């Protein structure tokens, strides 16, 4: 049913390129985000479960 509705996506060849781009962007962004956090902030977050 769903395949009948959508039948054919135009330009399916671009799919792998798009997925690679998304993948690369997401990961680079995440790594930049993580490693620019301040240590004290990380320590505070890590300490949350130890609060009563």
């Amino acid at each position: 049913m769903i395949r009948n509705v959508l039948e054919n996506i135009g330009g399916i060849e671009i799919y792998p390129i798009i997925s690679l781009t998304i993948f690369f962007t997401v990961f680079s962004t995440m790594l930049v985000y993580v490693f620019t956090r301040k240590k004290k902030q990380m320590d505070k977050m890590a300490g949350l479960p130890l609060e009563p």
Partner: protein
Amino acid sequence: MEQTSILKEQVAPGAVMDTFQYDNTIVRNFAIASVVFGLVGMLVGLLVALQLVYPELNFGIPYTSYGRIRPLHTNAVIFAFVGNAIFAGVYYSVQRLCKTRMFSDALSKIHFWGWQLIILSAAITLPLGFTTSKEYAELEWPIDIAITLIWVVFSANVIGTLIKRREEHIYVAMWFYIATLVTVAVLHIVNSFELPISFFKSYSWYAGVQDALVQWWYGHNAVAFFLTTPYLGLMYYFLPKAAQRPVFSYRLSIVHFWSLIFIYIWAGPHHLLYTALPDWAQSLGTVFSVMLIAPSWGGMVNGLLTLRGAWDRVRNDVVLKFYVVALTGYGMATFEGPLLSLKNVNALGHYTDWIVGHVHIGALAWNGFFTFGMFYWLFPRLFRTRLYSKSLANAHFWIGTLGIVFYAIPMYWAGFTQGLMWKQFGPNGTLQYPNFIETVNAIVPMYALRAIGGTLYIVGLIMLAYNLVRTAAQGKFLANEEAQAYSRGVIKQNHEGDFWHRVLERRPVRMAVLALVAILIGSAVELIPTWTVKSNVPQMASVLPYTPLELQGRDLYIREGCNACHSQMVRPFRSETERYGEYSKAGEFVYDHPFLWGSKRTGPDLHRLGDKYPDSWHYHHMLEPTSMTSGSIMPPYPWLVDDKLDVSNTADKIAAMRTLGVPYAPGYEQKANADLQAQAKQIAARLKDAGIKADHEAEIIALIAYMQRLGTDIKKAPASQP
């Protein structure tokens, strides 16, 4: 803790702490349900394990036959034992991490009783044979709807709690919970698209290759988002709690979270290597499965290194012991997963007991032992007392660990042995073990050993239950635990350099949306091309829809759970084409709602079964398998001979299949039963010629019709449609 951070926390002058109460009752209730259903689910597991050694334990009745109660075991341990344990841990930790009571006690109660009702309905419907046949998603559509509603209740309760929280920051455990909420909802809904025929029967919306891909996208990610992410959340809370030190690296936990949820969702096709699934999808599954080892081991290392400088305590603290084995099991299972996703390894391991060993390392060590550690830590706190017996808990630890070892080693042994025997050629170029039963009889002793391992593990669980009951009896339950915290906003914070942290990590709903986007990207790349691109499923002119009798027979095959032990997917190996015949093609399954490829060969593959044996062989074999195959461990199915086939729903089934795209001619449902009777009489006549007096209305006739059709279409010239 460090209070003078860049966040420069300052309490506003004159601010007063709120006093409020944590709800411990809901935690206790889920924990009790987890232990009780854990015992039930594992005892059913022991029964199915023993049935493979002593087939008479199928008792000759439908409700206890292997095909029906094996799904009962998997559903009970996954959704009842592990599910209830997740909810116990989540309700405990969410309240404390948010410094508030749950959003709504009423929602908590609805969630608890609703979930137990769903478990009860599963325990009734599965033995009765009401099943969709899709692994870990066997429950029929009314229960699927109930699961959806209860999951919404749970999600609303957790998100509501997050919104009214007093703690400014959202700890990483909460992220794992949020990802679980969102992803399980998506997986469950997409995989459960089905067209109801009656209250307890439906057909999968998808067919063949598409159905297989959706199912294993679901199946794999049920492991990811029901057995893994919620437990990682629990680990990030309960491990630091028990170790009394913060997690090793909070940075690593962020990387762990995003990479795990982003990569996991792509890996599903590794369950379908060497099948008729398009090659590009198989490669995608392999690549992402190999990548998955990084976040998985990152998480394990983060957990284990949390114990740095506290290893001496592992010797004395039984809770930490359980956690260490749990994390080690997680590491082993997540190393083995990528390994099994390599095509050359998968060629040997798939369909064998290696996979059963693999999942039980995850289930018994990671889920089981983490749960036990958590309960040993929780109960003394909920009941304001000490654990009743530390030495009993230690004994449980050792007997449970031995149980895991005695379970896993025989399964690996059996898997390697059988996998190699299937592939072994003799010096003259023919199969060394052409009779499948030889490869079964070689591993039955391993099945017996595995049952011993399982028994040890269950004995350990009984010790836990006794210990917890005695702990509860000697203590006094604290239903509402008082706590104090400042309201959010009372603590002034210096947000300098904190922009992204605020944007991302303090907005639960935004977090949920981001997690959703992360898992939808992989899902879309994997699923949409297979749904939409015709060249992925080549059409075959000779492949026709099932006759009405075959369709009814197929539904009996599903009801009896034949797919629990038999695959319908001949892989393109010489060892398989020699044994079974031509390898399976994607185009042969286009009318299969649902697909029945199976995932385990306790018995031989059945895709090329049609026309292999006479009807009389099947009749005798179903009635008494050992009469045709000496040493067979298949249960007998005498009721198929006694019970009459229900043909009242034939028209509805044909109409439903047409709705799903199967090309039955318009109005065919009106004469379907006439065709059904005619074909049944032909089979009964052939049986009569073989000296068997069979009622043409008996269920077994329909099942024989289906089995004789299996895989025969490609041998025929293209014909006209029925």
